[in-house]
C-alpha cells in the first residue's frame, strides 16, 4: 500500500502559489535587469563609438566642430557659474573659519574644494544642461527627420559620424573647461575675500599654495574627463534612439539631462573614493 498523503491540495492552489512566487521573483529581479540593460546598451554604444575613433575615415572637422560647441560655446556659462561659485565658497568658508578665527585658510579651503569637487562637478552639470541637452535634441531631430537613415544610405556609419566626435570632444574639453572654472572660481574667491572681507592677501596666497598640489588638479581633470564620457554617452544614447515625433525628442532631451546629471553625481562618489585610496590627502 502506498504511503501517499491522505490530504491533497485543492486543485489549482499549487499553481496559484507558483504564479505568486513567480510574480514576486519577477518584481524583485526586474529593477536589477533594468539597470543591467541600461548599463549594457550604453556600454555597447560606447564600444561602437570608440571603435569609430580607430576606423577610417578620420573626420577631423567633425571633432573640431564638437569641441567648439561643447567647449568654446560653453565658456560664457562656465565663467559666470565659476566666478560666483568661487565667491560663494569663499563667503561660506570665511563664515565657518571665523568661528575659530582662522579666516586665513580661506584660500586653501576654496582652492582645494574647487580643484577636486566644485569645478569638475559644476562644470559637468553645466555642460550636461547646455551641451548634453543640445546633443540629445540634435540627434533626436535627425532621427525623426530620417537624416540618420540618409547617412546610412550613403554607406556612412552614423555612430562613427555623429556619436564618436561628440564623445571624444566631451572627454577632451571637460578637463579644459574644469581648469577654466578653477581659475575663474579662484578669481571670484580672491576678489570677495580680499576686497569685501579684507583677508590678508599674503596669507590667502600662502595657504592656497601650501595646501593645494598639482595632484589635486590632476584628480579634478581626470574626474572631468570621466564625467565628459558619462554625460555624452547618456545624451547621445537618448537622442540617437528616439522613436516618434517632437514630443519624444523633448522627452529624450529631458531624459538625457537627468541621466547625465545622475551619472555625473554617482560616478563622482566612486571616483573620489578611489582617488582617496590611491592618493591620500595631505595631512
Amino acid at each position: 500500500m502506498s504511503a501517499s498523503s491522505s490530504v491533497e491540495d485543492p486543485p489549482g492552489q499549487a499553481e496559484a502559489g507558483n504564479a505568486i512566487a513567480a510574480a514576486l521573483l519577477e518584481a524583485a529581479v526586474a529593477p536589477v535587469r533594468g539597470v543591467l540593460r541600461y548599463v549594457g546598451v550604453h556600454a555597447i554604444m560606447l564600444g561602437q563609438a570608440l571603435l569609430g575613433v580607430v576606423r577610417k575615415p578620420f573626420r577631423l572637422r567633425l571633432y573640431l566642430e564638437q569641441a567648439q560647441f561643447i567647449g568654446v560655446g560653453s565658456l560664457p556659462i562656465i565663467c559666470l557659474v565659476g566666478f560666483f561659485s568661487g565667491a560663494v565658497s569663499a563667503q561660506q568658508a570665511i563664515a565657518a573659519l571665523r568661528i575659530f578665527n582662522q579666516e586665513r585658510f580661506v584660500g586653501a579651503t576654496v582652492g582645494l574644494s574647487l580643484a577636486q569637487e566644485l569645478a569638475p562637478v559644476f562644470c559637468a552639470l553645466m555642460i550636461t544642461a547646455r551641451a548634453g541637452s543640445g546633443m540629445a535634441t540634435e540627434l533626436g531631430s535627425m532621427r525623426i527627420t530620417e537624416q540618420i537613415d540618409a547617412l546610412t544610405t550613403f554607406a556612412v556609419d552614423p555612430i562613427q559620424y555623429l556619436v564618436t566626435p561628440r564623445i571624444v570632444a566631451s572627454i577632451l574639453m571637460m578637463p579644459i573647461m574644469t581648469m577654466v572654472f578653477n581659475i575663474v572660481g579662484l578669481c571670484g574667491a580672491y576678489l570677495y575675500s580680499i576686497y569685501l572681507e579684507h583677508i590678508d592677501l599674503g596669507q590667502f596666497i600662502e595657504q592656497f599654495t601650501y595646501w593645494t598640489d598639482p595632484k589635486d588638479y590632476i584628480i579634478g581633470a581626470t574626474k572631468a574627463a570621466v564625467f565628459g564620457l558619462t554625460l555624452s554617452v547618456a545624451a547621445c544614447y537618448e537622442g540617437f534612439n528616439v522613436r516618434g515625433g517632437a514630443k519624444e525628442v523633448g522627452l529624450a532631451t529631458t531624459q538625457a539631462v537627468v541621466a547625465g546629471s545622475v551619472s555625473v553625481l554617482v560616478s563622482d562618489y566612486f571616483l573620489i573614493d578611489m582617488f582617496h585610496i590611491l592618493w591620500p590627502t595631505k595631512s
Partner: protein
Amino acid sequence: MTPTPVPPDPTPAERPPAAPSGTENLARRDERWQIRVRNLHKTFGPQHVLRGIDLDIERGRTNIIIGGSGQGKSVLMKHLMGLLKPDEGEIWVDGEDVVPFDERQMGKLRRKFGMVFQYAALFDSMNVVENIAFPLIERYKLSRDEIMERVRELLQRLDLANVAGIEQKFPPELSGGQRKRVGLARALIDRPEILLYDEPTTGLDPVATKNVDDMIRRTADDFGVTSVVISHDMASTFRIGDRIAMLAGGKIIVSGTAAEVLASRRPELREFIETSGLVPREEKA
C-alpha cells in the same frame, strides 16, 4: 434560389509575380528584372507587417508601390536598401541575394542605390551644395572644382540653378518642392542605378505634385535609372508609373502595367482607385 458566385479568373495583374523561390533561377543577372523579392516577412513586436512579399522590379522603368497608410510600404523600401533586415525571405539585386550581406558588403551595394526621402531628409547643418556633394565627399577624393562642376550640372538639370543664392541656402530656407529637388540631386550625384522615392508628393499642392512627377519621369528618362516609388497618390501613380504593385495586408495583391492594374477586380484596389476619383465609382447591384 441564388446561384453561388463564381470568382472571376485572375487578371494578369493579380497573378503572383513569379513562381516561388527554389523553382526559378534568381542567382543570375536578369535583363528585365533588377530587384526580385521573394517571401519577405518582417515583424515588429506583435505586428506582422510584411507577410510574404513577392515582387519584381523592372530595370530602367518607373515601378510604383501603392497601398494604404500603415501597410508597410516604407518598411518594404527600407528592406530593398538594406536599412532593415527581414525575418525571412530573399531580396535579389542583379542576381545576388543581399539578405545575408554584412555591413561592408551592404555599404558597397548601397552605392547602386539613391534614396529620396519623404521630407527630403536634408542635413540641417549643411547648405545646399554641401548636402548635394555629401556622397561624393564621403566616397571619393575629388577636387573642389570637380565636385562643384557635378553639383552645378545637377542644379541646372533639376531647374534649381535659377533660384537666387540657392547654393548657399540651408534646408529651412527652401520651399517643399525645392527641398525635394535638392534631395533628388543628392541621390543622383553618385549616378545610382536604382532610385528609391518614399512618398515624394506627400504634403505638396497639386502644381508642386505635378512638378515632382515630371521630375521623376524626366529623371528616369534622362538618367536611365530604375525608379521605385512608394505612393498613395493615385493620380501621380498612373501619370508616371510603368509598373504598379499594390501592397495590402502585408502582401502584394496586384502587380502589373497600369492597364493591367486598372483592369483588376480586387476589391481593395477598386476601393483605392474609385476613392481617388480617377474612375467613376461602380454601382453595386
